[in-house]
């Protein structure tokens, strides 16, 4: 077991013990939201950060996951049974993703980014208008299965941990190497024996699956969704990018750091700024991309590597990274 894996497992254990000491429901709710956004940030990071396929429409997968669960309950299943929506929602989101990826990943450039943006809007409009299935703009409401926040906390912690470990394992395997190669140079990747269309699709499938799971959890937890919430471009798709970019794209820790800061900031704004928060987050994304494109974790890591580099002997041929 490597040091980083041990650190990850240790933090998960520590986090799992937290509800034994924290009983304040507001604090627990904040923690649940942070972990939800860790899950979302990681999902986006796999495709956008590591594989270099920027998505402006991950709300499509979030919404599919959420509506899968919601529709299960609406059609008569008990809210406890709706937890199966985690799996089903993830699978359906991956299915939607695979159709889109199969079409778009033959092409390069902005086609995928723009198509998925369009897809998430199309799905939102379907959810608004297909009233028999989705209740339209009124949304779907039911009483969640558990009363205790701690139960939800443990479930989302487990989901975030599973996604973290899965993505970590993926990035250490052949898949991870292929994803990075695709991000760096697709022509080169092709000539080194990589079926780039196929591997971009794999990355999208994993990313969409976990985003769908997150959407389904959101429904289970909140007990209410409407199309404007779960298919939201600014509140879901763009914030997934913000979380990842702020913390550090293409790093394992980045999305978690980004999620903590994002939830703290949005809570602060809810009190002080009311609905001005989108303006602030928009400006923040621009600032990050211009001045800290590697995010907090990436920038710190680079500083640290730089210091080691200067401390090394003048012949810097060895052991820089």
């Amino acid at each position, binding site marked *: 077991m490597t040091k980083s894996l041990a650190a990850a497992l240790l933090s998960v254990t520590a986090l799992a013990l937290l509800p034994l000491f924290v009983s304040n429901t507001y604090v627990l709710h904040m923690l649940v939201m942070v972990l939800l956004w860790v899950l979302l940030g990681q999902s986006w990071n796999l495709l956008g950060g590591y594989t270099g396929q920027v998505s402006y429409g991950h709300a499509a997968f979030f919404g599919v996951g959420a509506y899968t669960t919601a529709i299960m309950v609406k059609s008569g299943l008990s809210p406890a049974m709706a937890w199966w929506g985690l799996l089903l929602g993830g699978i359906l989101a991956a299915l939607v993703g695979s159709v889109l990826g199969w079409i778009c990943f033959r092409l390069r450039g902005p086609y995928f980014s723009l198509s998925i943006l369009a897809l998430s809007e199309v799905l939102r409009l379907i959810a608004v208008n297909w009233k028999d299935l989705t209740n339209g703009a009124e949304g779907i409401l039911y009483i969640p299965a558990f009363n205790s926040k701690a139960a939800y906390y443990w479930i989302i912690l487990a989901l975030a941990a599973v996604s973290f470990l899965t993505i970590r394992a993926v990035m250490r*395997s052949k898949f991870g190497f292929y994803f990075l*190669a695709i991000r*760096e140079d697709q022509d080169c990747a*092709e*000539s080194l024996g*990589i079926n780039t269309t196929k591997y971009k699709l794999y990355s999208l499938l994993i990313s969409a699956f976990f985003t769908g799971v997150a959407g389904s959890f959101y429904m289970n937890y909140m007990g209410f969704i409407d199309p404007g919430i779960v298919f939201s471009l600014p509140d879901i798709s763009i914030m997934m990018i913000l979380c990842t970019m702020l913390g550090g794209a293409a790093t394992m820790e980045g999305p978690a750091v980004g999620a903590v800061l994002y939830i703290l900031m949005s809570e602060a704004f809810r009190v002080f700024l009311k609905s001005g928060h989108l303006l602030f987050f928009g400006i923040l994304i621009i600032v990050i991309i211009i001045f800290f494109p590697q995010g907090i974790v990436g920038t710190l890591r680079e500083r640290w590597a730089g210091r080691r580099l200067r401390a090394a002997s003048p012949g810097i041929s060895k*052991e820089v990274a």
Partner: protein
Amino acid sequence: MSLLELRGVTKRFGGLQAVGGMTFTIEKGEILGLIGPNGAGKTTIFNLINGFLTPTEGEILFKGELINGLKPFQVCRRGLARTFQVVKPLARLTVLENVMVSAFSRTDHRNEASRIALEATAFTEMEAWRDRLAGSLPLGMRKRLEMARALATRPDLLLLDENFAGLNPAEVEKTITIVRKIHASGVTILIIEHNMRVIMSISQRLLCVCYGEKISEGSPAEVANDPRVIEAYLGAAHA
């Protein structure tokens, strides 16, 4: 059976014919040099062989099987690797990781890929650079990384596209040694090169193209003294 065979391969971009009726073969174990003035279509020939481009007409056979229409990754998996004239390092990966990416075309296991990559970097004498980010390498090492990466795919045929361009004399010598070593290990080589001293000393056979057509083929001495070749490079007055 020849290792690689081009039969009347033509590539047109709209009205422009970049390669016309190209026919040649490479036998297993050979080093064939491909020369020609700038814009003659040498790199286009590489792009046709490796699958980046599909011929407008003609056939390309590798190990006796038709490969035109295959994608580059499929061509690579059949044992045909290439380097790029305009180097393409995977900039934010280390040298070793770069080479591991290509080693994964031969294995699914990380340890095995790492072993192949260590071997390929040792073979190309890049041990001291393994942990450097590829984007931070000087040009000479970038060119060598191209070779290490191509080697790690375990090719039967290696296409080298101007791996000597921009190197200093010491690096040129080193690269000649490495190319000879690759050849001695059983890899057949097709090489594009402008440095005449290098190509004359390395190649067993030369092929000269001009305006996309073959104008001369034979031993290095024959081709170098062919009036058509001299005309192509220096103009009719010198031929």
